[in-house]
């Protein structure tokens, strides 16, 4: 339990550094383009379309969509992309401590 709190504090402080430096925005943008590039976004969009078909165009909310596609969305991110992001964060931290 203590470990976990420590961890969440740690990631909060990392997050703070990333926001402060603007690095978080850069990472976000990079992830966005890499996910488009690998077809992730297209796959997710077509999944959304399925959800919309079920729920009806008028009734669907952002929360509905998020709830429906989050598991798929997480699973579909290529490991290569995750590793790249991880490495970038670590490189950033190493250079900024």
């Amino acid at each position, binding site marked *: 339990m203590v470990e976990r709190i420590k*961890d*969440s504090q*740690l*990631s909060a402080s*990392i*997050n703070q550094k*990333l926001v402060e430096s603007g690095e*978080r925005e850069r*990472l*976000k943008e990079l*992830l*966005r*383009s890499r*996910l*488009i*590039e*690998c*077809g992730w*976004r*297209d796959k*997710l*969009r077509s999944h*959304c*379309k399925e959800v*919309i078909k079920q729920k009806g*165009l008028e009734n*669907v*909310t*952002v929360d509905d*969509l*998020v709830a429906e*596609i*989050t598991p798929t*969305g*997480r699973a579909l*991110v290529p*490991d*290569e992309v*995750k*590793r*790249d*992001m*991880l*490495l970038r*964060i*670590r490189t950033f*931290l190493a250079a900024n401590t």
Partner: protein
Amino acid sequence: MSSVLDNGSSPSEVDSLDLDEDSSPEFSIVSELIDEAIVSVCFDIHRSIKRGVYSVLEQSDEKIMKQFEVVECDGLDVFGQVPLKKQVECICPSCQRNMAANRFAPHLEKCLGMGRNSSRLASRRLATTGKLIDGDDDDDNYFDDDWTWNSDRKPGKKNKRDRGNSPRRAKAPRKNGEAGTPRPGTPSSVHSGELPATRTGLTMTAFEPLGNEEKKALLSQTCGVISEHTARMCTRSHRCPQHSDEQRQSVRLLLLGYAEVEPPVGRLRPDGSSLEPDDVIDVDSYEDGDGQALRDTLNRLSWEEESNVSTGDDNSPAAFGSVPLVKKKRKKKAKHKRRPR
């Protein structure tokens, strides 16, 4: 914009990191970023619904898209079509004349009055001759691949053209089951019998076994000059504008031993076109014969002749068939020829 780029599966340079085990704070940041990206996708879509863009852009009509599905079937292209038989026509933007599309490039070159053609043509002719002497018989596909069959040559249209350059325009039938590389996925059955045998001249392989009288009869009816590209004899009348009297004489000199060109008396149809000898002889069945050597010699002969006519080369008729001379010429020309690079 970049969504058109493909998914790469190249091995990562950082794959030493084990993701499954990772519960580090850095990794939780990555997860957060990913979740954010997921939410972004949802916002984009939700927004496009609310703005009315979604119903217009995204709801793809599957029925419509169905008709554009790629066809994967032997003998058909991705559109589900068999090879096009119909000759496409186009109008020359320069002179507004209408013509078969596969004749457009040679026409345009002349029409624009440009091109490095004459010297290149000459050098290629010599180079090609040299190649055939080397006994490389793999090259039939050239004749098949690059040249398309022009089925509707009307004598009336053609008469207007400059006869000097015309021999090289003779086209080989495209892909009618001849030797050479067949198109992958295109069984020959699709092609067989498609192209009209009429107007197709004899190859030397087909001509050779004929009796002397038959040969004479044939040559008394037709022009007979052997085409550069198809290795076939011209089936038009003696007044064929594509070939010159000199060429007709030369071919007779070679094939019959004398060069008397008989006038086409009584052989004309009411419309003035020549009688087609092809009605009598099925040319296609002879195509895969092995008279390569003879054919080569004849090819060479006809090229030498044509260069006489079209490029004003100083090849004397005495040089016909003279291999060493041809080789020498080729070397000389090869230096000027830098294309294709």
